[in-house]
Each structure stands twice: as structure tokens, then as C-alpha cells.
């Protein structure tokens, strides 16, 4: 078995203590939530922190609550299986419940948390490997080296955002509550991510404490579609979240699409979603709108050889999954998944 490097563990009772530890130790400290991603990454020597700050004892980070102003507040340490099973989330944010239900496999969802999935490290087939393997290959620019094996001669890391819940939260216009030594702040999720595979988030040294989902418009429909080879365990080869708000006049008043497992950040497919606005489901125009949305998504999404598998096939699946996920959202079915 691969060995874990040696490290210290701190398990404070409060966020304040946790962020103080992070500030004190700087780059030598990392946060652990469920550990389902960090532990294997540490075994691969991708991270070798001296101190691991566990959030397990901070009780207020758990739980799913109806917010006073409407919408949901989900503690960052809520497990993915709790999020997937929650009636409140299934009713109030169906795409999120579906995305959470398809992360990894059942055992990992029991440990893995929503906050951990939002803050997931980017992934690449040339990066998520053992030290020996990466050394034999020649270290890449995401870790220990200067080469890119995805884009020959590339000098910008294109490791893929692989968090299923991120696109779902983006279509839901969720905001993220971070706490640092300077206090709390709340930022919209679509502003969190950067196009840099080495570290694809704007925030450092702060702890994600909660995810807030605004109250949904009446007529909200949402779904998530996930492409992967097996029916469980695997990270997405492509993931897409769809949202359609159907107004009282039965036309699409608002639409949103977001995709993941392409490049370093999850992306909003704005033009694609716009092609559905004002259309009435059940009409030929709507069908054409869906086709157009799928075609625009195909043009915008360019899968790279960053995650394992056939990137041409992944590309071909973009319009298929966009179309199927939109229709699933409309029907109130989903998730779109092959098993």
C-alpha cells in the first residue's frame, strides 16, 4: 500500500481557531473535510502539508437549513450523501441533489462533503499519479515541474475542474460563505473559479463555511447530467447542470447551463442557455431552441486530454448530454446518467 507522508493533525472546535491555524502555518497547512480527495493526493505526494486542519469537530459547519430570507443554507461539512438525500435540497435545488448523488460512489459520499467538492483540486491524468510515475514521466507544471503533457509546449496548466456540484451551484446562482481571520464574506460561486489549473480558486487561507442557495422562482426546473465510463466511483468525463424557470405564461423566463470536466474552471454556457429564453416547452420552437443550445455548447466546450478517456467522444457527448439534461430538467426527471 502507498504510505501517507508524516503530518500533524489539528482538530479545532471553531472556525476562528481553524483560520488562525491556517494563518499561522501558511502554505504548510491544509484543510481536511471528508478527506476523500486529500488523502489519496497526499499518498501521491501531490500535497505534503506539515499540518492538516480537520473541520470534523466544528459542529456549526454541518446541517441544511431553510434560510429566513428564503432559499437554503447548507453547511460546508454536510456530507454529499446528506445533500443528495435531503428533501429540502431535492425540492429547492434539484440539480444540486442530483449532482451530489453522482459524486464518486456511496462509501465516498458518506465521507465526502459539499464544501470539499466545491473546493476540489483540479484533476489531470498526468498529475493524479504516484510520485514514481510522475518522476518517470517528467514532472508537470502543476506539481514539481515545468512541462505540460496535455498541451505540448503549453505553459498554462489545464487540469480539469472535476467537481460535479460546482456547475449545479452555478446554475442555482449560489453564493459561498468564507471565513478568514479578517471575518466573513460571501461571494457568488461563479466568481470563485480561475482559469488556472494549478490552483483554480480566488480564495486562499479562508475556510468555506456554508453554501447559500437563493429562493427559487416558481416554475424552477433543474437537472444534472454526468458522463463517465462506469456507473459509480469515477470523476466526470463531462458534467452539465441545467436550469429552466418556466413562467406563468409557460415560456422560459430564465435559463442557465453550466459544465465541468473541461478546463480548469467550471463554465457557464451563457449563449447556449440564452437560446431557450422566451420559448414555450412543447413547441417546435422550443425543440429547435434545445438543438441550438446543444450545438452552441458543442462549440463552446472543448474537452482536452486532461482527464482519462477519448476526448473526441467526450466532445461528441457534449450536445447529447446538454439536450438530455435540459429535457430531464423540464420533465422533472434526472439525473442524466447511463445507469
Amino acid at each position, binding site marked *: 500500500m502507498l504510505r501517507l507522508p508524516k503530518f500533524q493533525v489539528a482538530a479545532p472546535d471553531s472556525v476562528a481557531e481553524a483560520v488562525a491555524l491556517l494563518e499561522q502555518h501558511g502554505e504548510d497547512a491544509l484543510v481536511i473535510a471528508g478527506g476523500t480527495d486529500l488523502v489519496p493526493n497526499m499518498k501521491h505526494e501531490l500535497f505534503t502539508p506539515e499540518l492538516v486542519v480537520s473541520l470534523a469537530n466544528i459542529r456549526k459547519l454541518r446541517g441544511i437549513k431553510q434560510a429566513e430570507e428564503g432559499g437554503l443554507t447548507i453547511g460546508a461539512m454536510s456530507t454529499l450523501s446528506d445533500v443528495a438525500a435531503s428533501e429540502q435540497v431535492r425540492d429547492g435545488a434539484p440539480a444540486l441533489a442530483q449532482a451530489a448523488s453522482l459524486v464518486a460512489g456511496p462509501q465516498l459520499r458518506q465521507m465526502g462533503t459539499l464544501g470539499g467538492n466545491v473546493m476540489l483540486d483540479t484533476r489531470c491524468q498526468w498529475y493524479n499519479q504516484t510520485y514514481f510515475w510522475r518522476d518517470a514521466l517528467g514532472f508537470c507544471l502543476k506539481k514539481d515541474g515545468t512541462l505540460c503533457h496535455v498541451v505540448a509546449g503549453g505553459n498554462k496548466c489545464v487540469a480539469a475542474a472535476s467537481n460535479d456540484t460546482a456547475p449545479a451551484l452555478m446554475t442555482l446562482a449560489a453564493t459561498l460563505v468564507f471565513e478568514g481571520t479578517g471575518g466573513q464574506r460571501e461571494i457568488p460561486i461563479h466568481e470563485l473559479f480561475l482559469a488556472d489549473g494549478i490552483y483554480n480558486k480566488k480564495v486562499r487561507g479562508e475556510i468555506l463555511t456554508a453554501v447559500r442557495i437563493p429562493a427559487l422562482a416558481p416554475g424552477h426546473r433543474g437537472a444534472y447530467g454526468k458522463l463517465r465510463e*462506469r*456507473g*459509480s466511483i469515477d470523476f466526470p468525463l463531462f458534467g452539465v447542470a441545467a436550469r429552466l424557470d418556466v413562467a406563468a405564461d409557460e415560456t422560459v423566463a430564465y435559463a442557465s447551463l453550466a459544465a465541468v470536466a473541461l478546463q480548469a474552471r467550471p463554465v457557464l454556457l451563457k449563449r447556449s442557455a440564452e437560446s431557450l429564453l422566451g420559448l414555450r416547452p412543447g413547441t417546435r420552437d422550443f425543440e429547435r431552441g434545445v438543438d441550438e443550445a446543444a450545438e452552441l455548447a458543442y462549440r463552446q466546450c*472543448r474537452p482536452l486530454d486532461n482527464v482519462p478517456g*477519448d476526448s473526441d*467522444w467526450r466532445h461528441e457527448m457534449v450536445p447529447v448530454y446538454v439536450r438530455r439534461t435540459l429535457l430531464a430538467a423540464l420533465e422533472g426527471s434526472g439525473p442524466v446518467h447511463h445507469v
Partner: protein
Amino acid sequence: MAARDNHGTDAPWKEGFQVVGRAHPKIDGLAKATGQAIYTDDIQLPGMLHVKMLRSPHPHARIIEIDVHQALELEGVHAVLTGADLPKKYGVIPWTPDENALATEKVRFTGDEVCAIAAIDEDTANAALKLLEVKYEQLHAFLDPFDALERSEPQIHDEIRGKEVRGNVSKNVKLEFGDVEAGLEAADAVVDDNYFFHGTTHTAIEPHCAVAQYSPHGVLTVWSSTQITHYVQRALAHVLEIPEAKIRVIQPCLGGAFGGKSDPFALEFVVAKLAMITGRPVKCLWTREEVFYAHRGRHPMHLHYRTGARKDGRLTAVDAKILIDGGSYSSFGLITTYYSGQLLTGPYDFPAYRFDSTRVFTNKPPCGPKRGHGSVQPRFAFEVQLDQIAEKLGIDPIELRRKNFQGEHTETVNGQRITSNGFLRCLDEVERASSWKERRVKLPRGRGLGVAGSMYISGTNYAVYPNAMPQAGVQLQLDRSGLVTVFTGGNDIGQGSNSVARIIVAEELGLDPEDVRVVAADTDLCPVDLGAYSSRVTFMVGNALIDACRKVRKQIVQAVAEDWGVPTARVWMGLGEVFDLEDRERTLSTREAFHLTEERFDTLGATGSYNTPELGGDYRGGTIGASPAYSFTAHVVEVDVDEETGRITVENCWIAHDCGRALNPMLVAGQMEGSAYMGIAEALLESHDVNRFGLHAGPSLLDYRIPTSVDTPELHALIVESLDPEGPYGAKEAGEGPLHPSVPAISNAVFDACGIRLKQLPFTPGAVLTALRAKTGEPAPVRA
């Protein structure tokens, strides 16, 4: 003396089988389920050191210099080994010893073992690895078998066993039986096509592990997760240059093997040598990544077949040319090369056959035997080709197979003796169970049914080192407590061979199965069995057990009959009791019967053995693939093809397997389901691949995709019992044969579903979409 006796197919006692033929849980099932079973890695000895290995970062390179000084100086490091410490070459096949435990002059694939470090714990050993310095001179790496075939320089191996190697050819076998060209000319239809079977590996859940201890008296004990205890003992003696009598090899409980633990491996030699040097017990547990490098999995094969048939479907000739990608070492490759041709000659009869198989070395992890060794790949190509013939001639694919059935008690075109053969019943069973006739043509588009058949060996008469001694030996000890202990060299690798031993002994001696214990795979305690490979254990150890049991049974019956003053024919034993058949009031417990017998004959026990009869064709290599009995299988697979995503879903797999007599139907069904699962996995998901840098594409259980429970279709095991005249009570193998047809049956079902022929493995969704487009003439999407 009894080695070649046949024991018949009947129950040993007049009133039929008491134990055989019923479902019995595995002998070690509860121990495994509760965590009590002791695997090799569970062994902890006082003062034990831990080993880590340095591996080559290059696919092909010459070693210029190894500097171990800094590593040796690290506190906690006890010893460092390099190739120079273990210079003797070995190989599981004595004709092709081309491996060193640690590389001597060259490394031949990324992951080849170079140095080994023993330290007080794993972390210290790992830290010391980073202090080793090795200088390499890189050489051209052969990643493509065609390149290896065409280019002879640089050679991956210069010589093996003093014999020069021809370029990078590991083995070539050309054999021809009958007049192939005439047969093809006489045919009304000839199909000529190419097929590719990719590499796959075993993925046993337990990684390889070995522990060694060296006593002050010079006795070396090695515990190893091996399926070939006896061969490991011989290989250790050869490499370490100490007598076999000074070596004890023990196989603890094993977490799966599938052929991946049937070579001697570097870690066994390394822990042994380090235990001898340090005087401490030494353990090495490989990581999952290292298991992928150890490999010995399915050989990738490029296969070309030409098959001719008359209008009525009767085959006239088969012509095969196969290029086999062997990876970096020989392993079982000599056998693989023969098997790729020799095992195709059933269950169908064809009058002319030729094969030309070439195995080449490449700079990749070494290939070897995986479940269905050497014959799964050609079977895939041939069974798809048969479907193409059926299509061409307008014959139902099951009917075509029936028409070419070779029959029972016959001889194949390459001179192999066929005894029992239940293949027709296998076809009947899958045809019935799948409602083939009613459903095949009526299924909606995207749904299809496909059939395929196969044959496999129940052991072979080719021991890897030639000798006239029995292939299987057993010993029984009958205790005064009523307990019988079986000592067998046979390796239980999870297939249930110890459970089979218990059932046979309980049946023969009329015991409650709980009163039989099995001690297996310990070379100090158990008579030699050659090991768990070639699906030989039930057949051979089973026969040896019957042989041994009948010797003591005779004594027990005689002692009881004398005590009772009745003829021996009146004594009956069953489920722990001994009766007088004509006076049911007169009974003894088995325990009491053992006492009477021990009083009459002294300490009770017996040995038993089995050896194969003379078999095989009268030509060089004619014994390779010659088996005392062959199993037969037919599958029908039902698929659903999503023509938009290209994804194939197997909805149902009906598996009919002729296993002779099912000694324990529960275990037989388990083997059938497990085999089909593995075949479907190879067809749809798994790929053991080396990337353009010569590195394994993803040596982890995340990247190497084996199906999860939600990816596994409904598997329907349909046991067919043909009762083989030479098998124990008529039993044959069940562990490997049922894998073969799943792969071609999927391809054939996809053809039925949407009219495309998948001839290249694996059947990825991308490949399906490409084939669908090729059929309709639609252009591939352009990446805008």
C-alpha cells in the same frame, strides 16, 4: 501405482451421492467474511524488516552505474540489494529463463525492478529509495509489436539459456493439419478478416506479498501470495543456490489470483535473500501500482483469420496468423504462443487448420496467463468470424454452430483427444433460456442477441518441467477424534479447491463435511501438486483424493465387517455414521469405526495421486494443450446499444457451461458468473495500456476500470453436466472456460442490434459511434 486409475463417475456408496451435487458454502467463507482469514500481509514476525523496491523510470535502458552508499547510510536501513546479488536467471518455463529478481545489466520496461531496500519500516525504506542513484543509458523502446517484429536492434533480450534470440521474437509456432488451401478452395464462402484483442490484467484485490524467515539451521521459510507453491520452491532453490529441502513455501489465504500469481516474482527472491543476509524476518507488500507493473496479464493479439464453409454451413478450413505482444519477458509465453493456436480445435470440427503465431518482446510490463490463458483472444476472433459466415450464408448463428459440432469421444484435427462433450446441450440451454427463436429477430432496433461457444482444458499433461512423477499428490490423516485432515499441495486461490477437497473426502468416507479439514499449499506438510493453473485442481487433486480415500475406505469397511461378522458389501458409510445395510439397527459413529480400524491396521492414513494419461498429437508441441478432459461453454448475450452515445449495455448474459459433474453447484455457478463478469469487463471497460511515454496509462483502481456492481449485468448460470469418464465423479473444470464466449457474444449481439461488426477490442462507445458512421456513410463530426 494408482496414478493413472480412473475412478468412474458413480457415487462411491450404493445409495447415491450424499454430499456431492449439493450446495455447500466455502470452507473459508466465514473466516473471510469475518476478517479472521490470515493473508500473507497479516503475518507479523518479531524484528521483521520491510522492503521497498526501486523501479526503472525508463522503458528500455542499460544500467551504467548504481550507487547505494547514501541509502545504506540512512539510519534504519539494514541492507540494499542490486541485481548483482541475485545473478541467476529464472523463468516459470524452464526453457526460457530470462528474468532476474533485480535487473542486472538492463531494464526492459518502466517499472522493472532495479534495487531492493530492507529497513525497519516502510517509511524508512521509502526514504532510502530516494537516496539511490542509478545512471542509465536509454535505448530505443519498443512499444508496438509490429515495430518489434520488424526491427531487430536493439534487442530486448540477446540470449536466453545460452541460445541467441532472433531479433525480438520470443517464440514462433507454425503448425498445419490437413490441406488448408484445398479446404478454402472447396468452400462456398470464405471470410477473411482482422481482429484485435487488447491487453487486460487480473486485478486480484489482494496485492502480491511475501514474507521470509531464515532459521539458524539454514531453513528458509517463505510465505507468499502465490498460486504455484511448488514452482516457487524450485525457483528459490535455483536462484538462491540452496537445496530445495532447505526451503519451505507456504501460501496463506489468498485474495484472488486469476493467473496473476502463477509466476515466481521478484519479491519472493528478494525477501528470501534479505532474510538470509540480515537474519531477520523480511516482508514485501507491493502497492497496487507495482501489481500493475508485475502484470502477466492477457497478451494483446493482432489476429488474422480466414475461414471457409460450404453452403450448408459446414466448415472446410481455418487459417490463422497471429502477432502476440509479449511485453518484456517470456513468462508463460512459450505456452501462450502454442495455446493461441492449439486450443481452437473444438467444439467445432474442421478438416484443415493452420496457425502461425509469433510472440514478440516489447518494452512493456510482461504478459502472461490470465483466466483462459492464450485462448480467449483467438476465441474472440474466431467466434465473430463464425457469425460473419452465418450472416453470409443466411444461417442462424446457433444452427451454424450446431452443424459443426465435433461430437463426443472423438479427436480434433490437431490430434487432441475429446472425451465428454456437452456443447450441444449448452447451445440448447442458452437458446431456450434467452428465448432466442422467439425474440432474436423481433427485438427493437438497438437491442440484440448474440451467441458464442468455446472449449477449455481441465489441466494439461504438460508439467512445466518434464518428469514422470504424479501431477497431483495428496495425503490423508484419520484421527481418533473422527476428524480427517487432507494435506494437498493444491493452491486454493479463492476458486474453492479446498472446499472441493472437503466434499470429495466427506463423500468417500461417509463423513459430515465439517469433520474434514484441509491443510493446503505448504511444501513442508503437503505432497506436491503443481499448482492452481490451467484449471487443473478439481480434476487432478480430485482424482488423487478419491485414490487416497479408497485405500483407507477399504480398511475401514474390512475392520467394521470383521467386527460385525458380516460381508464387507453390507457396510455402508454416510454423513458421519456407519450402518449395516441389512440391519439398520446396527450402527457406529465414524469415530468408532476409525478406532476399530486403527486397532486392526495401526495408524490410519493414505496417500493418493493422479497423473494424466499419454495424450496429445505426435508432433513437436503436440502435448501442449492436450488435456484429459475439455469443458465446453455457450453464451447468449443480450445487449442494448444507445446509438446516440455509442454505449453498449449488456442486459443479460446466459452462461451454459458443461463442467462434467457439478461437485458443488453453488461454487460452479459462482465461477461461471465470475468468468462472464470478467469477460464482459474486458470487452467493455478494461484496458491495460502503455502510453506514448512507455508508462502504464493509469496503474490504479481508479484509472483501470473494472465494473462495479451497478455495471454488472444479470448473469444466468446454466449448469450442464456431461459426466466425464476420467474426471472425479465425472467433473471437469469450471473456472476459466465460461469466460471465453462473453467477449465475442457481445460483438455478435451488437451486430444483431444495429448491424455493425466490432472486431477491435475494447468496444468503447467512441468505437461504436465510428462504426455506426462508417455503416451509414455519415462523416465524422468536425471539431469546430
